[in-house]
């Protein structure tokens, strides 16, 4: 077993900073009762002005006139840790959040796929850097040792028990993850590193500090088992960014939106899923949130595409009040099937595949504005066609469910049936139909009409309430256009124009 530990020394601060468009503004996290607020973490700009963790808020305000002050939120802390576990789940199925401020993953199997370690480590660094989290990364033979060493080394890879013993021996007891009262006592005894602690007699150690300390030391050395609970990726995505000011312009929403969509995409990559329908909720002060729902024709997970679509939907939404928070929710995460590209694509200049372009058009123009047409087996021109809004999707989405077997046979039957209907339609539709059909017939006001052919009687629909009894003619007008026009059956009245032979 080989374990990688990602230790996040500034998890709370990085989590807040990554949601802000200007990370260079001084910012501090505060906690504690109202009368005794203390700084928990400060960013680089605040640190440069002399602020530091542990300071009281009053002292900080005396030092620096203006800085952003954010409440330290333990729930958010845990949420970010889970988000990172979701991202790292991509590399290993055994990911644990049992250690505070850290994500531990078992990588012995992953090394075969992503390795060797330097290359694997580069992948992990790239993912974590892209998400904006500072981190230490250590590889060790057992999880507890990896976690302890990650607090002492920014980067370290140990593969033999001997190297582990050597590295652990040099860990100062202050940073050995032992309880504070124990480290204080050990320091008072004149001990400085774990090497000295390891040489103490075990019985004496238990008598003095209790069994927990010895158990921790054994786990670090790998001589005691260390059962961990495994992270299970959730079936839904729900993230939220709160602003500490009112947002009234669209532009100010793009940065948090991009961040949320990137997190969603990273999460989806982690669980190898896609998203087909998600919702952006804009929360307001004292009124219900404005939902903006984004639906796609196929599951996608490309962050740029998702952001572009969400952005154009958001730009069209009417938002009644200033926005205080933004939340992204995706409840259905279907499996993602990457579109197979054509190696010998007919057009080398292609920059965007049709499914992505279609999503872009749908997002900007409206979902119902992009469609294809289909022939329906009906003689009435109004009903001889049907709009298909997702007909241009190349493949139906595969469903993973217990009914998969049943579903596939159903689909097969469905396709056969549809084809039969098409064939029937193609056979029964007479060839003489105009290329253009008017949405509704209009009176034909033209003097010199010459009837080219007809009448063709269309009489149908007495059973479904839209009864049609018409005699259709092909007529040439004085302007030289050929039109498809009709008269009610048996009448000699004026023609109604219904289409153009173009």
């Amino acid at each position, binding site marked *: 077993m080989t374990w990688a530990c990602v230790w996040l020394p500034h998890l709370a601060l990085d989590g807040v900073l990554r949601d802000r468009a200007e990370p260079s503004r001084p910012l501090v996290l505060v906690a504690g009762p109202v009368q005794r607020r203390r700084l928990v973490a400060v960013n680089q700009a605040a640190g440069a002005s002399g602020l530091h963790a542990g300071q009281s808020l009053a002292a900080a305000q005396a030092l620096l006139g203006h800085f952003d002050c954010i409440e330290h939120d333990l729930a958010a802390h845990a949420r970010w840790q889970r988000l990172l576990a979701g991202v790292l789940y991509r590399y290993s199925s055994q990911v644990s959040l049992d250690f505070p401020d850290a994500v531990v993953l078992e990588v012995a199997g992953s090394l075969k796929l992503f390795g060797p370690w330097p290359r694997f480590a580069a992948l992990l660094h790239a993912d974590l850097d892209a998400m904006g989290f500072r981190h230490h990364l250590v590889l060790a033979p057992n999880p507890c040792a990896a976690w302890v060493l990650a607090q002492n080394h920014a980067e370290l890879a140990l593969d033999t028990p001997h190297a582990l013993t050597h590295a652990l021996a040099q860990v100062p007891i202050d940073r050995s993850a032992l309880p504070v009262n124990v480290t204080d006592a050990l320091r008072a005894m004149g001990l400085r590193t774990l090497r000295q602690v390891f040489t103490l007699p075990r019985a004496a150690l238990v008598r003095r500090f209790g069994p927990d300390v010895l158990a921790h030391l054994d786990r670090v050395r790998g001589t005691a088992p260390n059962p961990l609970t495994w992270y299970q990726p959730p079936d839904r995505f729900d993230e939220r960014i709160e602003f500490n000011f009112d947002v009234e312009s669209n532009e100010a929403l793009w940065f948090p939106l991009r961040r949320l969509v990137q997190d969603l995409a990273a999460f989806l990559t982690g669980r190898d899923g896609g998203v087909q329908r998600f919702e952006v909720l804009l929360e307001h002060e004292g009124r219900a949130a404005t939902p903006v729902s984004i639906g796609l024709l196929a599951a996608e997970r490309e962050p740029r595409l998702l952001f572009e679509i969400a952005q154009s939907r958001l730009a069209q939404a009417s938002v009644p009040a200033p926005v205080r928070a933004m939340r992204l929710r995706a409840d259905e995460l279907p499996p993602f099937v990457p579109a197979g590209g054509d190696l010998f694509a007919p057009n080398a200049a292609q920059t965007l595949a049709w499914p992505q372009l279609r999503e*872009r058009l749908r997002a900007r123009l409206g979902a119902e504005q992009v469609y294809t047409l289909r022939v329906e087996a009906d003689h009435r021109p109004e009903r001889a066609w049907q709009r298909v809004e997702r007909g241009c999707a190349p493949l139906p989405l595969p469903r993973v469910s217990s009914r998969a077997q049943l579903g596939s046979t159903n689909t097969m039957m469905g396709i056969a049936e549809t084809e039969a209907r098409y064939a029937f339609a193609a056979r029964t539709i007479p060839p003489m139909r105009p290329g*253009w059909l008017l949405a509704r017939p209009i009176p034909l006001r033209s003097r010199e009409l010459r009837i080219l052919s007809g009448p063709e009687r269309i009489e149908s629909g007495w059973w479904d309430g839209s009864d049609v009894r018409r005699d259709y003619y092909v007529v040439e007008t004085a302007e030289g256009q050929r039109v498809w026009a009709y008269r009610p059956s048996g009448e000699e009245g004026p023609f109604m124009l219904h289409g153009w032979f173009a």
Partner: protein
Amino acid sequence: MGAVLELDAVLRDARVWRGRAGPASTPGTSQPTGHAPLDAVLPGGGWPPAALSELLLASDGIGELALLWPTLARLTGNHETVALIAPPYLPFPGAWQAAGVVLSRLPIIAVREPREALWAAEQMLRAGCCAAVVCWLHAVNDRALRRLAVAAASGRTLGFVLRPATAATNPSPAALRLALDARPARLRVLKCRGGLPPSAPIPLPVSTRH
């Protein structure tokens, strides 16, 4: 030897003007129109590839579909996508299917305002995932057309712009301009890049069987 070959290639290019002799040999283009009389007069023997073609209509429904259908049928039959942007009427599927067009490869993009049609046309031409884009534009200026022409060139897509005949007097960056007259039913080549427009009009192809 290499230089000779290069010169041949240069001379074969439709953009080289060869005086009154006209284009001596027209190599087969990849985009024939499907109408032999029209192919015969066009330099390159068909639609200019990766460029804009403009069809100027005296009125709607005078044979513009009959002119386009063979091309659209050939492209959709080759499993390529052809888009219609802002068609003025409903393309009646029965007739289009009878003309050989594969309807499932013929997405239609409806728009609410003319600007959206321009935007959609430029996006689709530039993306290069459609073999041809046919759009109906009414009030469109020279600059917008030039944008479309550049988009068609960069996406290597066939672009068709259908406009009213009143636009014929305005200059246009399209590589090919055809005017369609209703009576008599004929077709005039106003401009074709890489060749002299023929002076004689060409009879319009007959649309359906009559």
